[in-house]
């Protein structure tokens, strides 16, 4: 592996680029029919994942949703085992049992993503309760979408976290859609998600989700507060998904999103936003970007080869792991 930049800003940009390219590779490879599981890509939303990943300690637990590739990777999850999971191989991070929607890498505190909307929210709060009971100084991060907030279990879990003052940080990626449904058919006009979270008792803020530097900074401050025992917090980040909800393609031909929105958000591509901000940053240049692209492409190619060549789970083990 190539040495990663020491400069935190450079690292943020490179990490976003890496997540982007890893997912672009999925979009490219998926039609071959070897990754046989539903995939929900985060292309366009990388800044949140990467900003959060940078602000958390490796030992801080995180849980996530159906759309968790970026979260897993930004938290430091292993790339080879990630791809191998999508290929359904025994070397996959969940041994091929879970696929894209069920990722885990315990070495970096990525405790698991699951595919029932809202399902990991109480699990994350429970992890935080666990750390509290054990006297561990950890912040548990719970990734949620805007749609997940409509599940009652979000409210129940947040309420309990406030009552017990648990070290939890909710990260909400508000991409304005749940599948094809815009937020306006699901939540009242005029509701501000972060205000609603605040009314439950969470320390709550709303921010731009496409500027990785401000995401990282905001999250870092929130993590520090939570770690200092100030109680659970909630950060809403506005962002946008580029591709279809589930699958490798663009689907704006379907016309469910205003073309104008799509264009505006693509103009605010988190990677380009970061590049623009980095213009005069020492050590940054388009050449550096190119070099990174090359390094990452090599890493991806190797990981794909690994995943493709990896062994299938032995059919005889199909019933394993039902009980510990």
């Amino acid at each position: 592996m190539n040495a990663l930049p020491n400069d935190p800003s450079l690292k943020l940009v490179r990490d976003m680029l890496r997540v982007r390219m890893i997912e672009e590779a999925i979009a490219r490879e998926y039609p071959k029919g070897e990754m046989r599981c539903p995939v929900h890509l985060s292309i366009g939303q990388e800044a949140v994942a990467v900003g959060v990943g940078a602000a958390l300690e490796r030992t801080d637990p995180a849980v996530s949703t159906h759309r968790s590739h970026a979260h897993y990777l930004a938290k430091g999850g292993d790339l080879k085992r990630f791809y191998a999971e999508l290929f359904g191989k025994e070397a996959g991070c969940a041994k091929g049992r879970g696929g894209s929607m069920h990722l885990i890498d315990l070495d970096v505190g990525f405790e698991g993503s699951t595919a029932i909307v809202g399902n990991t929210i109480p699990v994350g709060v429970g992890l935080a309760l666990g750390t509290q009971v054990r006297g561990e100084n950890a912040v548990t991060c719970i990734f949620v979408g805007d749609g997940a907030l409509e599940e009652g279990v979000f409210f129940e879990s947040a309420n309990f976290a406030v009552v017990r003052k648990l070290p939890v940080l909710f990260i909400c990626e508000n991409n304005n859609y749940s599948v094809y449904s815009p937020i306006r058919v699901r939540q009242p006009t005029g509701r501000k998600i972060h205000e609603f979270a605040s009314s439950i008792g969470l320390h709550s803020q709303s921010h731009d989700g496409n500027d990785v530097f401000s995401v990282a900074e905001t999250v870092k401050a929130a993590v520090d507060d939570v770690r200092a025992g100030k109680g659970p917090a909630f950060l809403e980040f506005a962002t946008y998904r580029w591709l279809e909800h589930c699958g490798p393609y663009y689907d704006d031909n379907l016309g469910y999103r205003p073309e104008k929105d799509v264009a505006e958000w693509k103009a605010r591509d988190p990677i380009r936003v970061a590049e623009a901000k980095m213009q005069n940053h020492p050590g940054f240049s388009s050449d550096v970007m190119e070099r990174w692209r090359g390094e990452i492409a090599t890493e991806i190619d190797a990981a794909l080869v690994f995943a493709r060549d990896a062994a299938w789970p032995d059919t005889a083990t199909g019933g394993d792991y039902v009980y510990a």
Partner: protein
Amino acid sequence: MLDAPTSPLAFVDAIRDGLDVAMQIDPHMICYGLGVDDPKRIFGTTTGLAEKYGNGRVFDVPTSEAAMTGIAVGAALRGVRSVTVHQRLDFFLLAMDQLINSAAKWHFMFGGQRSVPIVIRLILGRGWGQGPTHSQSLHSWFAHVPGLKVVMPTNAADAKGLLLSSIFDPNPVLFLEHRWLHQAVSEVPQGDYRLPIGQARVVAPGTDITITAMSYLVPEAIRAAEMLAKHGVSCEIIDLRTIRPLDLPAVSASVQKTGRLLALDSGLPICSVASEIVAFASERHFQSLRTAPRRLTMPDHPEATSFALTRDLHPSGESIASTVSDMLALPHRFARDPKAGPHDVPGAWFKGPF
């Protein structure tokens, strides 16, 4: 009614047609669920309805399965029938309180004063890495519960006929659609075509063994019967169609005739519909049984994502035929045709990912 003209429709189109017919008949009927008016229209099963009946009757909802189920109950109490849908049965686990403590019991616990005519469509996933949380078929849970009706249609005509009966039934009905049957085409009667809930169908009469099946296992059983017929074995296949109430008279008649029973189940084995049918037949027709009854079901564990781990996971034509052969003490065993397409998709029409 039975002489109504028919046309060939895919399962999804038959559902759409049934919904359309019902919404025309009942001007207050509503239809809601995540995505009913989105571009994909629940795999095409709700196409055109939002345009035709408007947002007041066909609408998208928040991701709130528990509340949306109780809301159907309340609307029903006010005389508004509904068909709601969940793109996977797995999501519906969030709504068990409203299903069991409200919908299934309302009529009973208030002494029959109100009933709850609601239909909840649950789509069953399988294969293409749907995995542990997108492939569950907990129909045996629902069959356990008095107050519920549970239908599991196998073909397009039954889907339409049972859907219309479910909608106009005064009780809560769970309507389980297998994703792998969505493109199955059959001749479907036009108009207000209804099939009685609770009536099984003898798919093919036979003399050597009774095979009970539901949903996607019916075509597999038919494949098995075809393989066995070549060896002179005659199977009587019963498509249960409804798993609560079960058509026990149909099972009785068949078992008394054949003296042998193989109960198939597309779900988990323990405390399953297959268990129930074997228990029933053993209790009631012990004297008629010439050999031990058998079950063939999913194994007792969840479906994993990996392509390698779903091979031979579910009962198939081959495993059914081999089991029947074994029960008849015949030597034939059947294996999957290596030239057949991948085992984790129903056919070339299924392109993933969902």
